[in-house]
């Protein structure tokens, strides 16, 4: 069951970047994200699955729909880049080698705690400040861009 979901996820991922029409590509992308959410439910990570479905299938897909209103119903033609497939295969092969090498080490790791909130505060609490800084800089950039755009429109 879970393998079938993962195969469908890969096929939908390929479809979403190879289809020529924007709306079918968008539907493939949304379905892929939804299936990943279902897969997390199968893994018994219910909160992660819910977040995946709410954030991706809900929020990000709606954001992308704004992009579709600008692009139209067909994607523009892409330049031929023959090195793209070679580089992605090379990176994939390198990652597979790394994961195979690290699997025995990963299996010996022991969990520090089973409480998610405690794990977060122990390992990643310091990153909250960095995330806040990223959020503030994005907000600042947004305001600057809106002002820039308004200036362009008024001449």
């Amino acid at each position, binding site marked *: 069951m*879970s*393998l079938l979901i*993962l195969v469908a*996820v*890969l096929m939908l991922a*390929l479809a*979403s*970047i190879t289809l020529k029409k924007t709306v079918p*590509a968008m539907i493939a*992308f949304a379905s892929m*994200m939804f299936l*990943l959410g279902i*897969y*997390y439910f199968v*893994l*018994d*990570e219910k909160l*992660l699955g819910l977040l*995946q479905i709410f*954030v*991706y299938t809900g*929020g*990000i897909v709606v*954001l*992308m729909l704004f*992009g579709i209103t*600008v*692009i139209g119903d067909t*994607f*523009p033609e*892409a*330049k031929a*880049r023959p*090195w793209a*497939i070679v580089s*992605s*295969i090379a*990176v*994939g092969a390198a*990652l*597979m080698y790394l*994961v195979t090498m690290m*699997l025995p080490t990963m*299996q010996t*790791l022991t*969990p*520090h705690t*089973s*409480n*998610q909130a405690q*794990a*977060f505060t122990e*390992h*990643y609490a310091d990153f909250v400040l960095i995330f806040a800084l*990223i*959020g503030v800089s*994005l907000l600042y*950039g*947004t305001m600057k861009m809106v002002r*820039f755009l308004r200036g362009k429109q008024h001449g």
Partner: protein
Amino acid sequence: MVNIELIFAILLFSIGLYGISSKSDFLRIFFSLEMLLNAVILMLAVSAHHWQLTQNLALAYMVIVLATLEAAAGVLIFMIANKVSDKVSPDAFNEAHQGVKHE
């Protein structure tokens, strides 16, 4: 079983990388970026589930937050680039920008 799941995550990462390096319009680049981040989330979720590494699950939530921020900022940049230059691909936007520079 866990190896197969990790291989699927790596394949998803490779598809995302292919999309970023071969496609030349903003929307498919966003799709591919989201695929890269989702491959990472999938790896973290699989490792958290099979080896009870709860800290990986906490990191997966943070990656989801980062992906949301990235999508919001990316769509905003795309809309503004399109308003300013009427282009929908980074290549065309770059060429138009170079043309303005040479003039």
